[in-house]
């Protein structure tokens, strides 16, 4: 199958406008004859559901949480980018587009990214109109800050909880439509499969997480807005419930999965303290503006630190290795996320890590406190320091913070065309669960932007085109495909419930995470990936043999919920490894050890890998099929990143 991205022709800046005009429209009186299913109600899902309902479509929205407001979009701290140029510092749509393409290490589609930059300005207007309390200047206008190494101040923020405030805005718009009976909201419902009728997505099968009831719902189109799959790694900054089941089931029903190995690993997270650790907490990377990253110079010294024989404050300057400053004199501690993360892991793998587990490096504010004073540091980072203290019981004003990288975001996801439609007609993917806009690495403050752009300003146009094409023929769940899918799911659940082995689901999940982190994390090589593939396959076999699943279907059953999710994570993990094996270049968030410069830095291979790797599911235990969408850069010149 040739992947048709449906990228419009014409000059970059005019593509989207022109395309919007070319799209077919649904007659206003016909809109109420269409039903749209939205799965996941974070930023992308809530904004899409609300916007589509406003247009007059009937929307059925689903989320596994007890409220859409709890979706993990809520945890984004830093902010949201928009090319408003309110600061008069030279920002523009083109500059945001350019930064995003470059930040993604030239592995994203120009047309999509430009559209994202164009819509960014509308997002801010929309959110303010909804009552989102963005930070303001004393003059009453919106404040901006520079974020993630950007050269302009284009990031809008709401203290340290921009994600929560934006989600509450989208959620309020959604609530309004629920109140108007245009959206039927199904909380605590998990999508377990996609229903296909005549080759088109036409519904979903869900499990009511309270009663266990397996239900099916029909719609003219299905929008997946289910977020990323970082929890494949077990430990990540994702919420505990974040899972890949919806997109993985869709993948198995025919949606191609693009760039599954593209994972973003964030450098400034609070380290693991023990094997009971359930998740990792991210701290804003703004900390690296003033904090200095170091480890003890020798393994012996590090060993003493780990044992608590030596306190970090007592280590002499000469015995410290400020490795980022040493290796990257011009960027120092402000190197991009992937570089900082990789170097921290290297230092720890080298035996120089600190903390009881040895999996941490220091982020030291002693110099900043000395230079700026404690008050100034507190004013800038007070809440982050408090958060750190809360979790670790260590006072970062007195001793250096310990940080370690953690999986944070997945750039890969379901392949979508310019309309955000997957390879399955009628099935769309929005937000983090699609692959579209961030290439191999996402810039800070861009995730919120993409989720909202997709939901508020892209899907309302592009979905209409598809619906106008299929016409308002009623759909319901009477088609045999619904009964069949429901039966498949019931069988699968019964299979899970019959599993009375010896190993818990968390143990499998943790094992999978360790494999992924070790061999398919920041740095990979062929031998490791091959090993990982074998390990995952063995894990999968063992899972279906030895896992324990408790309880019954007709109740709230976290064991059963977890079983389905872990089973899907294992399969997705294998695909991620396949993708990582295939991509023999270093790019963006990941480092392929076989592809490095003489100085040991990431070396991209544009000659051979300037494409999107989209994988087609070919059946259980059958290798997936690789399809390539070549990335064509008409507007930007590809350059190699350097932070020396």
């Amino acid at each position, binding site marked *: 199958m040739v992947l048709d991205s449906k990228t419009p022709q014409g000059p970059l800046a005019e593509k989207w406008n022109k395309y919007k005009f070319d799209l077919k429209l649904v007659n206003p009186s016909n809109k109420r004859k269409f039903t749209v299913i939205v799965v996941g109600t974070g930023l992308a899902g809530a904004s899409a559901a*609300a916007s589509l309902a406003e247009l007059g479509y009937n929307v059925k929205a689903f989320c596994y*949480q*007890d*409220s859409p407001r*709890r*979706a*993990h979009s*809520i*945890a984004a701290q830093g902010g949201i980018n928009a090319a*408003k140029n309110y600061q008069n510092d030279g920002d523009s749509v083109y500059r945001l587009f350019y930064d995003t393409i470059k930040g993604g290490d030239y592995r994203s589609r120009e047309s999509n990214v430009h559209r994202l930059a164009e819509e960014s300005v*509308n997002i*801010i*207007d*929309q959110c*303010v*109109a*909804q*009552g989102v309390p*963005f930070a*303001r*200047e004393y003059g*009453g206008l*919106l404040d901006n800050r520079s974020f993630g190494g950007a050269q302009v101040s284009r990031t809008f923020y*709401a*203290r340290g*909880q921009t994600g*929560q*405030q934006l989600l509450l805005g989208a*959620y309020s*718009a959604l*609530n*309004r439509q629920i*109140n108007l009976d245009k959206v039927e909201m199904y909380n605590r419902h998990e999508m377990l499969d996609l229903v296909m009728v005549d080759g088109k997505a036409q519904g979903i099968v869900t499990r009511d997480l*309270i009663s266990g009831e397996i239900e099916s719902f029909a719609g003219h189109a299905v929008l997946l807005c289910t977020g990323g799959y970082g929890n494949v790694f077990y430990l990540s900054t994702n919420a*505990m*419930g974040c899972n890949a089941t919806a997109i993985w089931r869709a993948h198995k029903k025919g949606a191609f999965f693009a760039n599954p190995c593209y994972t973003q690993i964030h450098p400034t997270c609070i380290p693991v*303290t*023990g*094997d*009971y650790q*359930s*998740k990792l*907490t991210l701290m804003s990377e703004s900390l690296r503006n003033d904090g200095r990253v170091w480890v003890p110079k020798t393994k012996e010294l590090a060993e003493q630190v780990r044992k608590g024989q030596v306190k970090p404050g007592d280590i002499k300057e000469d015995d410290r290795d400020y490795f980022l400053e040493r290796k990257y004199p011009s960027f120092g501690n402000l190197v991009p996320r992937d570089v900082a993360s990789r170097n921290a892991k290297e230092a720890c793998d080298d035996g120089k890590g600190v903390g009881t587990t040895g999996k941490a490096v220091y982020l030291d504010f002693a110099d900043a406190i000395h230079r700026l004073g404690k008050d100034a540091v507190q004013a800038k980072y007070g809440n982050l320091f408090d958060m750190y203290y*809360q*979790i670790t*019981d260590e006072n970062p004003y007195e001793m250096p913070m310990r940080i370690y990288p953690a999986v944070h975001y997945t750039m890969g996801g379901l392949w979508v065309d310019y309309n955000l439609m997957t390879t399955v007609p009628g099935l769309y993917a929005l937000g983090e669960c699609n692959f579209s806009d961030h290439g191999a690495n996402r810039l800070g403050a861009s995730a919120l932007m993409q989720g909202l752009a997709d939901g*508020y*300003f892209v899907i309302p146009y592009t979905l209409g085109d598809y619906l106008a094409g299929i016409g308002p023929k009623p759909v319901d769940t009477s088609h045999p495909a619904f009964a069949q899918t429901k039966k498949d799911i019931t069988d699968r659940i019964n299979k899970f419930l019959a599993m*009375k082995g*010896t190993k*818990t*689901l*968390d*143990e499998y999940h943790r094992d999978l995470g360790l494999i992924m982190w070790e061999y398919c994390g920041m740095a990979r090589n062929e031998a490791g990936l091959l090993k990982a593939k074998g390990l995952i396959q063995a894990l999968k076999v063992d899972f279906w043999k030895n896992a*324990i699943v*408790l309880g019954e279907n007709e*109740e*709230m059953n*976290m*064991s059963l919920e977890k079983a389905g999710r872990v089973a899907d994570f294992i399969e997705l993990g294998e695909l991620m490894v396949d993708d990582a094996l295939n991509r023999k270049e270093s790019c963006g968030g990941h480092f392929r050890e076989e592809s490095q410069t003489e100085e040991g830095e990431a070396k991209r291979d544009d000659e051979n890998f300037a494409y999107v790797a989209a994988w087609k599911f070919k059946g259980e235990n059958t290798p997936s099929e690789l399809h390539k969408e070549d990335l064509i850069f008409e507007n930007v010149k590809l350059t190699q990143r350097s932070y020396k």
Partner: protein
Amino acid sequence: MSGNMNLTLKVWRQKNAADKGQFVTYKAADISPEMSFLEMLDVVNERLVKGTQDPIHFDHDCREGICGACSLYINGRPHGPKQAITTCQLHMRSFHDGEIITIEPWRATAFPVIKDLAVDRSAFERIQQAGGFISVNTGGVPDANEIPISKVISDEAFNSATCISCGACVAACKNASASLFVSAKISQLALLPQGQPERYRRAQAMVAQMDKEGFGNCTNTGACEIECPKEISLTNINRMRRDFYNAKFFKEEEIN
């Protein structure tokens, strides 16, 4: 598992909404003080599962204090003994070795127990659906900087907007009143210029829904403010009252 704390947990177990429920005592041995409270429960659950016993069900998701899903009533207080944090941010070092810890679900008629420690907070959803929004459609809105808003007002609106809908206010209140939650939601929009057109409609609609859900009366004990993980102020409740009285006694727009 590493750790040297040995605890006794008295946990409310209830199979479903119809079940009567009871306390069950568990020994939690070898707990590390570095664990979060929920990780401690994870460890207990892992051991239960190994013994093929049904794990303790509780709501949780982000585990960093922002999603508002976690909801445990620990030793007589919502979110446990410390202030300004959620249960997921509570660590075992806040307890001492040998301690008996009582864990209960939020108790309120409007928050029926679903299973064990998980409760149904959909009443909060319906209250927000009743009017917790500004009626603007996507697109067609003015430029964001066309509405200057005083920083003081904006910051105050933000303070109200930090509410995470966890329900600790209801759990803490001896009357199971939802006033702090509802008023925080009303306040955020009442303070901002964008919220003015629907200000009095919203206050009436949300209060009416709050009453319909069966929450108790606010008697100004202030417990909610103390227990709120986001330190939402009682001022919000008074602001809600002003808007409500204003709407009911001085405005013509009538919402049931």
